[in-house]
C-alpha cells in the first residue's frame, strides 16, 4: 500500500509525522483503544512486568558494560571496582544481578498462567512459540551473564554446562572446543560470552516485539478462555489496563527493591565471591536457582547423553504444547481434572528445583526421577489423552454473561464498552 496515510491527528507537527509514518496512529490503535477483555485478573500483568524487567536489564547492563573488563585476569576485580568506585555501581550491579532472578520469576508465572488458561491454543500457537523462543534466549543470556564476574561458580558452571555438549556422539568434543575457543574454559570463552551477553538481549527485544505483534493480531486470552463476543466484553487498553498494570508494577518494584537494597546476595551463591580458580573444583557446583529444575532433570538418569537429551527435551517440548493439548476448552476453570493435574505439574517443577539444589544422593535421586517422569508424562501423555476424555464444564455464553451471572443478554442489545455490561 503506497501513498500517504490519512491521519486523524489534529496537531500539525504530529500530523505531519503521522501522515508519513503512521506510528502515532499505530500506538493509539495498539495501546490506546485496543479492545481488551474486561475480565483479566492480575496474572495478565506479568507480560508487562517482563517487558519492564527487560528494559531494566538492558539499561543497567549497558552502564555496567562501561566499567566491566572481559579478561580472565581482570574481570573479578572490575566487578569489585563497579561495586566500590563507580557512582551507584553497587546499585547497578545488584539491580542487574537480582533483575535476572526477578525476570525468571516473572516469566515462570507468565508461562504457568498460559498453561492454566490454555493461552497457547488456536489461534495463539505462534504467540506461544515466540514465547518459548524468548525463554530459550533468556536462558542463554542469563547463563553467559553468570560467567562474566569470573568467580568460582562462574567458571565451574561454564565448564559443566559447556561440557554437556561433549555427550553428543562423534561431534561432541569438537563442538565443545569450538565453544570454548580453546581446550578449556578460558579467556577466549569469557570474551565471546561477553559479546553474546551484550547481543542476545537485543535479540530478545526483537522477539518480544514479534510476540506482542502476534498478540495484537489474535487479541488476548482471558480467564474464561472464551473469545469476546463484542464491545460489551472488552475495554479500551488505556486507561483501564494501563492503570491496572501500574498497580502491578508498583507492587513488583517493592519486591524487587527489598531484594536489591536489603538482601542483594540472598539468591546468589557465596562461592561466586571467590575468584575463579581452574585448579580448585568447588565441592558443590550448582547453577543459579532458576536453572535448578533443569539441572535436576539433567541428573535424573545415569547416562550423560540421556540426561542432556532430557534436559533440552524438557524445554523443547514446550514448543509443541499447542498440539499436545487436544482439549477444545482453553481455561482450566472449566476442566476439573486438568486443573488438578496442572497443580501437580507446578508441584513437580518445584520439587525438581529443590532436588537440583541438593547433592544427587539418597532420597533426592528417586525424588528427582519421579518428578522428571511426571513432567514428561504430563505433556506427552496426559495432555493428549485427557483432552479427549475429560468432561468439561459448560462454558458461559459470553464474558459479560459470566460476569453478571444472569440470563442471556437480549439479542442485539450490545452495550458500549464503558457502560455496565
Amino acid at each position: 500500500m503506497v501513498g500517504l496515510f490519512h491521519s486523524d491527528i489534529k496537531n500539525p507537527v504530529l500530523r505531519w509525522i503521522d501522515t508519513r509514518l503512521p506510528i502515532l496512529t499505530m500506538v493509539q490503535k495498539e495501546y490506546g483503544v485496543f479492545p481488551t477483555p474486561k475480565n483479566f485478573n492480575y496474572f495478565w500483568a506479568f507480560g508487562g512486568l517482563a517487558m519492564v524487567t527487560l528494559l531494566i536489564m538492558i539499561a543497567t547492563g549497558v552502564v555496567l558494560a562501561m566499567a566491566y573488563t572481559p579478561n580472565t585476569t581482570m574481570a573479578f576485580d572490575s566487578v569489585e571496582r563497579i561495586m566500590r568506585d563507580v557512582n551507584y555501581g553497587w546499585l547497578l550491579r545488584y539491580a542487574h544481578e537480582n533483575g535476572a532472578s526477578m525476570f525468571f520469576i516473572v516469566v515462570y508465572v507468565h508461562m504457568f498462567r498460559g498453561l492454566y488458561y490454555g493461552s497457547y491454543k488456536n489461534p495463539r500457537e505462534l504467540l506461544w512459540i515466540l514465547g518459548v523462543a524468548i525463554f530459550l534466549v533468556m536462558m542463554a543470556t542469563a547463563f553467559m551473564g553468570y560467567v562474566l564476574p569470573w568467580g568460582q561458580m562462574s567458571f565451574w558452571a561454564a565448564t559443566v554446562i559447556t561440557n554437556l555438549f561433549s555427550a553428543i556422539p562423534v561431534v561432541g568434543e569438537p563442538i565443545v572446543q569450538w565453544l570454548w575457543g580453546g581446550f578449556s574454559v578460558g579467556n577466549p570463552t569469557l570474551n565471546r560470552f561477553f559479546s553474546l551477553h551484550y547481543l542476545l538481549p537485543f535479540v530478545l527485544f526483537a522477539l518480544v516485539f514479534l510476540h506482542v505483534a502476534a498478540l495484537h493480531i489474535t487479541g488476548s486470552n482471558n480467564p474464561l478462555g472464551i473469545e469476546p463476543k463484542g464491545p460489551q466484553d472488552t475495554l479500551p487498553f488505556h486507561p483501564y489496563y494501563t492503570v491496572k498494570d501500574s498497580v502491578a508494577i508498583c507492587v513488583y518494584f517493592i519486591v524487587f527493591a527489598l531484594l536489591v537494597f536489603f538482601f542483594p546476595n540472598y539468591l546468589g551463591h557465596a562461592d561466586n565471591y571467590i575468584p575463579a580458580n581452574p585448579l580448585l573444583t568447588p565441592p558443590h557446583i550448582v547453577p543459579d536457582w532458576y536453572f535448578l529444575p533443569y539441572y535436576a532433570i539433567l541428573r535424573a538418569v545415569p547416562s550423560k547423553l540421556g540426561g542432556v537429551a532430557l534436559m533440552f527435551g524438557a524445554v523443547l517440548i514446550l514448543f509443541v504444547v499447542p498440539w499436545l493439548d487436544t482439549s477444545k476448552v482453553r481455561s482450566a476453570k472449566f476442566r476439573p481434572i486438568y486443573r488438578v493435574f496442572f497443580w501437580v505439574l507446578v508441584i513437580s517443577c518445584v520439587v525438581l528445583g529443590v532436588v537440583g539444589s541438593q547433592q544427587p544422593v539418597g532420597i533426592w535421586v528417586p525424588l528427582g526421577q519421579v518428578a522428571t517422569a511426571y513432567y514428561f508424562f504430563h505433556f506427552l501423555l496426559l495432555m493428549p489423552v485427557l483432552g479427549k476424555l475429560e468432561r468439561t464444564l459448560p462454558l458461559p455464553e459470553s464474558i459479560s454473561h459470566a460476569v453478571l451471572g444472569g440470563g442471556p443478554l437480549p439479542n442485539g442489545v450490545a452495550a458500549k464498552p464503558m457502560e455496565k455490561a
Partner: protein
Amino acid sequence: MRTLRPTLIGAALLGAALLGAVVTAAPARAQEETEPSVNWSFSGLFGTFDRAAAQRGFQIYNQVCSNCHSLRQAYYRDLIGIGLSAQQVKDLAASKRFPALTEDGQPTDRPGLPSDHFRDPFPNELAARAANGGGLPPDLSVIVKAREGGPDYVYGILTGFIDAPAGFKLMPGLNYNKYFPGHQIAMPQPLRDATVTYIDGTSNALDQEARDVVTFLTYIANPELEERHRMGVKVVLFLLFLTGLSYAVKRKLWANVHH
C-alpha cells in the same frame, strides 16, 4: 468480584510454590557444626556499622591479620567511612611502603597514599604459601560474602579453635577448628584473649576481638551498606505510597465496570 477468590488462591499457591523453590534452593551446607548466630549492628533493615567496633576491628586487622591476609580490593581512604579522619588515613597510608621506580628506572619504594589499595603482605602466591606451611591465606576483601553463613561463619572460624578430639588425626602443620569444613585449617589460631590492647579500654576478650574484626571485614566487603539501607527505606516507602495512589486510581476508574 466472583472471579477474585480462585484467582487469589491460585496466586497464593503459585507464589508460595515459587517462594518455596527459591528458599529451599539455597544449597545444603556441608558443615557438620552450624556457626554461632551473632547479633550484629549491621544486620536488619536499619542496620549500621558500630563505628567504634569497626575501628577496633581495623586495629586487629592491621596488627594481626595483615601479616598474612591481603585486603586487595579496599583502599586506605575507605577507613574514613568508619570514622577515621582524613589526616589519620594519610598518616596511616604513609607508614606503609609501596614498590616504585626511581627516575632512572631503578626499583625503590615510596610511602603509601590514601588512594592506594591495602598493601599485600606477600609479593606473590608462592611466597604466601611458603610462609604458611603450604596454606594460602585468602584475600579478605569480600570474605564475609564469599562464605555461606557470612559474618557468623567468619566469627565462628576465629573462635572455633579447640583441641582436636581424641582419635582425630591432624595432619602436621594444620590446626583443629570446629567450624572449618573438614576441621583441619592451615591458619594457626590468630586471636586469643588479650591478643591486642584497645586504647579505648574495651574488653579484649576473644569474643570481643572476633566481633570487632568481623564488623570491620563486613564493612570492607560492603562499604555501601549504610547508604544502601537508607536508600532502600526511602525507595520502599515511596513505592508503598505510589502503590496506594495507583490502587486508588484503579478502584475509581473501574468502579463502573463489572468484571
